[in-house]
């Protein structure tokens, strides 16, 4: 039996999951894996990135078990950038001029932070929040200032604000939408979230646009100016205004992109080339990109099944259900959280002096659960999530009280 070579470009959470999954399901070693990671660090838990600003070392965040490094069938290259793909020859070109042949290629290049074209964004002291190296830059700038501004009040923006808090800075969060986490929560949930994070020392600026970032006499960031002319004095600005799929290899490899970027793949994560797949945030599955880790894992599993010719090989799709704890504040969003289903009812309970918000989205009869939003207390999430699409087995109050 010949051993074939799988090359994985990208050693983030999804790429790593693919490697682990393949190695655990391929005891006969039909595949040898070459992983090309652009970062200095092997795969780490990016979801918990802010804890690296607290007490965790990069090693503690690492997802790589020692056994994997000793695995003869796994070859891990860090600090290695792929710059081209020759699909006819089936080789990946590396930045250092090297070339690696493959039988199968999986693109798991992830995302890059989107930095809107705000004047001053190139100044020293302006950072993004995505990698462990980004944290080093943030840490460096944090030493020169007492206030830090995060542009973007989404999930990652709040994580970044928490990071600044852990560094001892007074964090500000600037969000263009009128509420925090506009994708996951509604107005009521946003209100609770705002109240709770404000209570933790984060200053929020909602529904405002950034006009420019100005430098001080030392040439570094000194202040951030809003569209209305008001300003925050700060030595650190962190952009967390969303991400874009890292699909820069699509051009040289002549692979099609989705409408909003990302390697265009079918529901099996296949590109138009039968030897090339894409998974995770860089994949536009039937045109749609998924910015959460759980769908990425499902994609990794589906591709492994195809490589091994066993198990379910289709990406089953994923809703954007999320549960997270931001600075100790529970937030969850699941199913049809924004009540888009025609005729849907919304049942909302606000309690604990406005510090707990719960919304259930129900069908027009108020019988079955279509989705919901929880903020301040998400203990009921696992049970509610498992009840999606089903008739409520108990009163809404009892379900919300359940843990």
């Amino acid at each position, binding site marked *: 039996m010949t051993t074939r070579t799988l090359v994985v470009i990208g050693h983030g959470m999804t790429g790593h999951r693919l490697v682990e999954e393949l190695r655990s399901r391929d005891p006969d070693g039909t595949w040898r894996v070459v992983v090309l990671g652009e970062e200095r660090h092997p795969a780490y838990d990016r979801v918990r990135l802010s804890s690296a600003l607290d007490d965790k070392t990069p090693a503690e965040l690492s997802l790589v078990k020692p056994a994997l490094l000793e695995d003869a069938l796994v070859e891990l290259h860090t600090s290695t950038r792929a710059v081209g793909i020759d699909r006819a020859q089936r080789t990946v070109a590396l930045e250092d001029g090297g070339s690696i042949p493959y039988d199968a290629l999986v693109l798991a290049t992830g995302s890059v932070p989107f930095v809107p074209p705000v004047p001053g964004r190139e100044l020293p002291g302006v950072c993004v929040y995505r990698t462990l190296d980004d944290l080093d830059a943030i840490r460096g700038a944090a030493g020169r200032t007492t206030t830090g501004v995060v542009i973007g009040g989404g999930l990652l923006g709040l994580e970044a604000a928490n990071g600044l808090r852990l560094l001892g800075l007074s964090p500000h969060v600037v969000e263009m939408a009128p509420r925090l986490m506009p994708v996951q929560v509604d107005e009521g949930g946003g209100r609770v979230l705002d109240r709770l994070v404000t209570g933790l020392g984060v200053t929020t600026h909602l529904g405002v646009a950034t006009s420019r970032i100005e430098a001080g006499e030392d040439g570094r960031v000194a202040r951030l100016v809003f569209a209305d002319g008001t300003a925050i004095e700060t030595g650190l600005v962190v952009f967390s205004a969303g991400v874009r799929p890292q699909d820069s290899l699509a051009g040289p490899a002549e692979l099609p992109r989705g409408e909003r970027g990302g390697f265009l793949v079918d529901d099996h994560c296949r590109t138009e080339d039968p030897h090339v797949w894409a998974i995770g945030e860089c994949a536009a599955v039937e045109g749609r990109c998924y910015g959460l880790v759980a769908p990425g894992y499902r994609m990794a599993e589906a591709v492994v099944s195809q490589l091994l010719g066993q198990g379910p090989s289709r990406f089953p799709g994923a809703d954007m259900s999320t549960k997270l704890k931001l600075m100790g504040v529970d937030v969850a969003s699941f199913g049809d959280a924004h009540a888009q289903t025609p005729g849907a009812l919304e049942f909302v309970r606000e309690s604990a002096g406005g510090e707990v918000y719960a919304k259930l989205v129900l069908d027009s009869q108020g019988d079955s659960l279509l989705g919901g939003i929880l903020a301040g207390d998400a203990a009921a*999430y696992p049970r509610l999530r498992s*009840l999606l699409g089903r008739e409520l*087995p108990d*009163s*809404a*109050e009892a379900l919300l009280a359940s843990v």
Partner: protein
Amino acid sequence: MTTYSTAPILVIGNGPAAHQVLDRLRHFGCEDPVTVLGAEDTPAYHRALLTSALDGSLPTEAMELPPPPGDTTIRTGVCAVRIDRVRRRVHTADGDVFPYARLILATGATPILPALPGLRTPDGSPAAGVAVLRTLADCTRLTAPAAREARTPVTILGAGSLGVEAAFALALKNRPVTLVHPRPWPMDHLLDAAAGALVRDRLTAAGVELVAGSPATAYTPASAGAPGTLHLADGTTLPADTLLLCTGVLPETGLARAAGLAVRTGVLVDDGMRTDDPLIHAVGDCAEHRGNRGGSLASGWAQAEALARYLAHGARGVAPARRVLRPRIAGPGLVVLGMPGAAPCDETITLNDPANGRYARLELTGEHITAGVLLGFDRAIATTTELYVHDAPVPRDRLSFLMGRPPRLPGAGSEEITPETVVCLCNNVTHQDLTRAWHAGAQGLAELASATRATTGCGGCARQVESLCASLASTTAATTGS
């Protein structure tokens, strides 16, 4: 000038509050003769029903309040002009004099004419075309046959509950109505944005043109062929030959003030509804009790009750009014309980049914409703109002309660855990995966985590995995007898 013999109790004002005082006074056994001076020519009527007279759904006779019981003399068309506290007499416009042993002021309130250029003539009276809606006479003017037949348009300023009711009533009579409100949605002092939007939709459906969000800045009355015009801050101009002001009321305190009684916004009264002259009381819309200047039927009722108790038994104390407002609007009902948003509460419950234009929001403290708004959930409107008025606890299953259904009992739906039920959502680990791993030796949280990856994502399922461990352990122990 006629000086009448001294009646033990003299009442100035013949509105619903005065009427209620008399009714409760007799109820509590006070049989003293009472004289009532009413400025209007008509017998006492139920003012809250005025808009029903406006749309013709009630004949004016049906609005009349029954004559008060006992020894009561009602003098209509008599306007009190001065209180002589030293001689204990009330003088009228006709020059008559009514002595009193006890005087009750129930002078009500008068519509506010906002300080808007053009609303008044130089002598201070309302300009031509400016109308108010407080009395039956106002109502008769607005619905004069000529105006009705010509379908004269009416522009209403102020979308509080009176303005909204008047708009529906006039629209029902096929009058073109424009409703102007300075705030973004109607009845904003009582309704939140969601309920306000539904009332706005109803107004639009009834043919009312709602112009909301910009305050009025001036009025130009109609003159010599030029139409009357209302000017708004945002530059809009609206034709307004008839401008109906629904901009609130002020307690009518002129007599009290001239008599030297303490007046703030209303005539100040204590828990016995007494002014600072112990022989003079005030009740209803003209009174201000502990900072509350009534303005609602419920508070007027509570005050009337308190005053009657005081006069009959010397008892003091005003029960807090359980205020229920049911504005008459087209379509399914609207009820406002208490003052939503005015006081902190433990919990709020909202049920929103945008597809059917229904909305309910309750403010709860403990199990009790402290305020609420319901629009269109007819059964819940009835039951909720009942619970609110009696301060009774709401059932635990609020969703079913608001939907007007019996409570949902545990086990009503299907929630049996199947082997395929996903426990760890991040890692797609099913109940079956965990059970298998457990039987294969991974009999703790950490072991299961390393065997199946469950709990290693967001960690949200840790509790479930723990309880699964416990239940597997106890099942196994039971079957093996160990």
